[in-house]
């Protein structure tokens, strides 16, 4: 198994200031500290398209007289000391983009079609959308997660309209440091949009479950492992062992002619119209989490085993400690209590051989070639198999399939003492970002999350079945035990008797809403204000 080289002293490619100015802030920053979030989804009546174009113009950063503007990445680059009072980002769905880039009926192709035809790899999944039956099948949105059942929660505002027959065109993500500030800026935004423009269809707030805004309802600390984007990383390259992921996986690059050359880093595996440059695509997901079912499942062997089972399901202890480096107990306090170096320990680990700065070094269970402290089936391992090239589709430290997660909890905390609490709606809401929905978000969900049998190294009895934090959806066919159980190794991975198998893995996450959105660059936002697109330069 080949090993990656150590991290260089500095990122060779550093993004230019102009790129930061042109990129929406959400692409390079998770906005920690802005833990009160409001997601607002609008529909654009055909009669109001020009008004919404005008709105796009007012949202361009620096526009005089605008109450709010879209947050570019600029501030985070120039290290200004004054924190902005809010962060605002915009996503546009396929229907929204078709409207904003529409042309008079006799002019073909429309600007949307021109962009689509030049950017087929990036646009074809976006164009069919998240609710398309084939998309739903691919990402596991079946049964009670099927698109026909989406948007039925309390957040649906257009009570007299069928959600599945309503164009959901625009998605605003508003981040604020407090609930009061969120209400204040949300009010200003709604006033700015006005009553004869886009119409609010759905609204969902996200409030933090802990002061730091790090926990999710299953009790895990979240948001630890994000891709290290080449040229945009703020991490210390001396200590950060995460492999650099080419920025074009997240910030779309305009197409250039390529010649295959194995001696050079791979070029973008897509072509893109310049309208898409510095933008990205994302899957917006509203995911309900059944905390009671989760707690019942991990407690089936008693409370002493519950935390171990929870760690095996996720690949991290609930405080964030990777079980690959600390298989027997959470070590987060110890890790974080030492020198500056240790903040990287939450991410400095691999599965086949230790990362350069991995501390403490793992005490292998059984076969040292197979890092079975963390099961193949564990959520973080299947979402990012790191150096394990026995996993199908992973020849590059998983770089080709990484996604940026910008999701936070919604709904009240679960209270096990209150019988009514289990019935309350709670879960995770936010964006899963990647330039290529097909090769990133959909690949991840299809090949690694919802399917087992993805590794030649995996000898668990159920070949990793289904991601245990999602749990298999109900099926018309009787499911085999391999899909309804969770296995983890407690000895030698080669011996079937050394696996602990927990039956009755329930479905723990339901999809209650989904959109594919384009996150336009600031340049593209200007174009949207006039319904135009830049010309292709040859």
């Amino acid at each position, binding site marked *: 198994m*080949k090993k990656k080289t150590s991290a260089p002293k500095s990122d060779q490619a550093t993004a230019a200031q102009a790129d930061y100015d042109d990129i929406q802030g959400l692409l390079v920053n998770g906005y920690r500290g802005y833990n009160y979030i409001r997601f607002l989804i609008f529909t654009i009546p055909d009669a109001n398209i020009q008004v919404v174009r005008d709105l796009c113009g007012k949202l361009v950063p620096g526009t005089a007289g605008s109450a709010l503007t879209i947050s570019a990445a600029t501030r985070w680059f120039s290290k200004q000391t004054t924190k902005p009072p809010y962060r605002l980002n915009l996503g546009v769905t396929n229907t929204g983009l078709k409207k904003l880039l529409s042309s008079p009926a006799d002019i073909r192709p429309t600007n949307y079609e021109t962009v*689509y*035809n*030049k950017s*087929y*790899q990036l646009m*074809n*999944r976006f164009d069919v959308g998240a609710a398309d039956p084939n998309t739903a099948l*691919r990402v596991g949105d079946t049964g009670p997660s099927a698109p026909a059942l989406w948007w039925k929660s309390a957040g649906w505002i257009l009570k007299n309209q069928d959600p599945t027959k309503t164009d959901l065109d625009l998605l605003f993500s508003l981040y604020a440091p407090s609930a009061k500030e969120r209400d204040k800026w949300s009010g200003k935004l709604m006033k700015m949009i006005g009553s004869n423009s886009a119409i609010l269809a759905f609204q969902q707030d996200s409030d933090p479950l802990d002061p730091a805004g790090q926990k999710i309802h299953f009790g895990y600390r979240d948001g630890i492992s994000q891709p290290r984007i080449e040229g945009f990383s703020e991490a210390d390259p001396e200590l950060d062992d995460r492999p650099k992921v080419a920025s074009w996986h997240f910030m779309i690059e305009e*197409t250039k*002619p*390529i010649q*295959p*050359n*194995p*001696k050079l880093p*791979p*070029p*973008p*595996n*897509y*072509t893109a119209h310049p309208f898409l440059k510095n933008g990205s695509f994302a899957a917006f997901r509203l995911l309900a989490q059944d905390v009671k079912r989760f707690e019942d499942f991990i407690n089936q062997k008693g409370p002493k085993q519950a935390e171990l089972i929870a760690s095996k399901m996720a690949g991290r202890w609930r405080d964030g400690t990777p079980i690959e480096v600390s298989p027997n107990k959470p070590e987060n306090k110890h890790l974080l209590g030492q020198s500056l170096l240790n903040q990287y320990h939450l991410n400095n680990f691999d599965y086949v051989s230790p990362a350069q700065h991995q501390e403490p070094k793992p005490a292998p269970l059984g*076969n040292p*070639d*197979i890092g079975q402290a963390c099961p193949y089936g564990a959520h973080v391992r299947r979402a990012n198999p790191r150096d394990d090239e*026995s996993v*199908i*589709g992973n*020849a590059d430290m998983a770089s*080709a399939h990484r996604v940026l997660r910008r999701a936070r909890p919604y709904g009240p905390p679960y209270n096990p003492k209150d019988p009514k609490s289990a019935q309350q709606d709670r879960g995770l809401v936010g964006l899963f970002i990647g330039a290529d929905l*097909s*090769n990133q978000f959909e*690949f991840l969900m*299809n*090949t690694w999350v919802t*399917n*087992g*049998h*993805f*590794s*030649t*190294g*995996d*000898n668990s009895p159920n070949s990793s079945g289904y991601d245990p934090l999602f749990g298999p959806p109900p099926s018309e*066919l*009787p*499911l*085999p035990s*391999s*899909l309804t159980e969770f296995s983890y190794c407690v000895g030698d*991975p*080669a011996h*079937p008797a050394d696996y602990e198998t927990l039956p009755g893995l329930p479905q723990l996450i339901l999809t209650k809403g989904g959109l594919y959105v384009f996150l336009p660059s600031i340049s593209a936002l200007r174009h949207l204000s006039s319904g135009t697109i830049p010309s292709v330069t040859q």
Partner: protein
Amino acid sequence: MSTAPITYLTTPEQQHLLFLCLPLKETPSLPKPTVDLVSALGSMLAGKQLDGAPTAFDSRPATGVHFTMSFAQWAPGVNPWFPAPSLPPPFPIFQVPPPSSKGKRNLLVVMAIYDADFGPYIGAFTNSQAFSALLDLVLLNLDETDFVSDDDPTSAVNILANNGTYANPDALVQLLMRYNHADPTAPITAIFPGLTDTKILKTSGGYPDANQLWPLPQAKIAFAPSVPPPKPRQPL
């Protein structure tokens, strides 16, 4: 410990058939690049390191290919690389595609059996620049005239004009589905259902010594002669 019989197969455990009938440009003889690329694709599937490729990479679990075969309907007197018998059947095996407005066409038939879904199967090829370069050569020899507009994002012409199959994996999937005569969602009737490449090559618990028996790159194999069946009887 007793083992229960297999009664359910997840999608990655199923095998599917690829049955492509690709319309080729008509040329008086087999273009050498076409011959070379088919053998090169076969070699790559078997793990051969191509010139310039960084390492030999085991693509077998990702592609899930169990079997592949190609056949070309070409000009009379040109030997196809399909193992055709010395005595052909008294009727054509495959029809060449109808002529286009530009002229006659030839035919390339590709059959394969692979694990899992069609998208990941094709994606395993296009993820590699070396594989993609070979697939580009296939597209270069296609004649899609009258079947699809050159402006269509999934046409061979458009794919090649936009950085080839490496940069257009989804378009390639749809191009191939235009000519795939097999239903990629219909599992084939396998004799050993669920026996995937991944299971065969498992580091433990797979086929005994699989990686020594079928190493990368593949060892040169000598084939002992097969016994031909009796020739058809002549009329008395």
